[in-house]
């Protein structure tokens, strides 16, 4: 209860500071709109459907791209962990491409796919896949060998070994890697949407971009808030269940 009160007080304080700064008149309202005007934008853009639609377009791109990235990255990561050859080749490639900021994929995606959903998807997949490969390979390589030995004596091998022993045993690494992949995907998608207008759908990034073009600071700040909130909610929905499962089962950081 006290924690909740502290959270409310903190954010209320931030908004109050912001109101005071906006009301002081030192900065032009064009550059620093009041919280009220941002709230007004959020309200009207929600009512006329702009924001929900953009959030839906962005969310769909993100989820589809992310799950494709995980679906490719997970098996590749497992294979990489099992083979010295793949580790030296695919592993090195993944490491290299993971250090490439994912926004750098945007020009290439545009030339390959044109201004299409395919380009967006490609950028998100590239942002996700490499870090998932690396995290999975790292996790699977670092599970205690005793698990594999115990499982082998009981007759676990092949597909069963991979799905029932190695995959769950590397879960702590996997969740970290998938979270990182998610963060990369989210960032790369925003970069792509801000840079590129795609006629098949306006995402949050595009609305942000037009906010700048129109000098509509309330829109810019409003959309930024929405992006932050979506990021937080996605983190809660997608990863919190896994993290609490890990805490419960592995006994790390109990009862938070």
């Amino acid at each position, binding site marked *: 209860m006290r924690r909740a009160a502290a959270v409310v007080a903190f954010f209320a304080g931030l908004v109050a500071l912001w109101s005071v700064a906006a009301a002081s008149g030192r900065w032009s309202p064009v550059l620093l709109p009041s919280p009220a005007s941002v709230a007004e934008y959020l309200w009207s853009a929600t009512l006329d459907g702009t924001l929900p639609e953009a959030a839906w377009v962005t969310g769909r791109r993100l989820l589809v791209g992310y799950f494709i990235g995980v679906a490719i990255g997970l098996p590749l990561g497992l294979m990489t962990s099992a083979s010295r050859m793949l580790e030296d080749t695919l592993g090195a490639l993944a490491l290299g491409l993971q250090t490439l900021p994912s926004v750098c994929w945007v020009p290439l995606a545009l030339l390959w796919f044109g201004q299409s959903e395919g380009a967006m998807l490609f950028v998100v997949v590239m942002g996700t896949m490499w870090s998932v490969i690396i995290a999975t390979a790292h996790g699977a390589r670092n599970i*205690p060998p*005793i*698990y594999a*030995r*115990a*499982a*082998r*004596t*009981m*007759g*676990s091998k092949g597909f*069963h070994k991979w799905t*029932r*022993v190695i995959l*769950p*045993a590397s*879960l702590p690494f996997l969740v970290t890697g998938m979270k990182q992949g998610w963060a990369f995907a989210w960032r790369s998608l925003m970069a792509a949407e801000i840079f590129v207008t795609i006629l098949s759908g306006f995402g949050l990034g595009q609305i942000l971009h037009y906010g700048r073009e129109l000098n509509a600071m309330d829109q810019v700040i409003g959309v930024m808030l929405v992006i932050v909130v979506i990021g937080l909610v996605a983190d809660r929905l997608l990863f919190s269940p896994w993290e609490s499962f890990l805490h*419960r*089962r*592995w*006994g790390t950081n109990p009862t938070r």
Partner: protein
Amino acid sequence: MTDQLAAAAEASPPKLIIEGVSKRFQARRREVQALDHISLSVADREVVCLVGPSGCGKSTLLDIIAGLTKPDAGTVLADGQEVLGPGRKRLMMFQEPALFPWLTALGNVMFGLKLDPAFSNAQRRDTAHHYLGLVGLDNFANAHVHELSGGMKQRVALARALAPDPKILLMDEPFAALDAMTRDQLYADLQDIFEKTHKTVLFVTHNVREAACLGDRVLLMSPRPGRIERSFRVDLHRPRDTNDAALSGHVAEIARALKASFASEAAA
């Protein structure tokens, strides 16, 4: 008990026959003869303890019997069948409990059962509960691994090894990391469980008292090359306790031999 055993041993063929097993390892720049023509046989329901200094190849021998490692020479026959790979007829317990943290205690015990298509899920659950009960932990069926103490973890690991009903139990210093009180309780329970479940047991340890307490026979292994140097028969009534006066004579005798083996090794 031991008289019956001797009679049974004469009547039925050995449960486990190890015939001229050798194994070399390539350690840094030199080859280590881990096992040198080891031969031994274990009768049905016999408990044989392997004692020796670390590095004498005890664990390697267990790995070979389990089918986890292939010998360079020699054969292992379990129930008259040559061992070519791991199998649920020979299950292994390790020094670390090696329980899977993503499963509950019950889930861990069911792991091996799930690999056996002969069971229905309800049967697996019942069997797992039965063996958890046998090790005294049925109340902890839904506990997570990290919530269990070291001794409890080894109990669950024992239940997991027993649940698929292996004929042969291979135990690789399973109690080495536990405190003395916990170990004493486990010795008592273990003898009871061996008796009830009719297992043939090969138990590796470096603790002479433990070996004398649990074993019908204690084999002394010497290192580099790993050989079986001597064999001691422990003809005492069960259940035995590590503090039994009668045990002390055996313990002293085996310890002396172990020491001598150490001395000759150091002199060599």
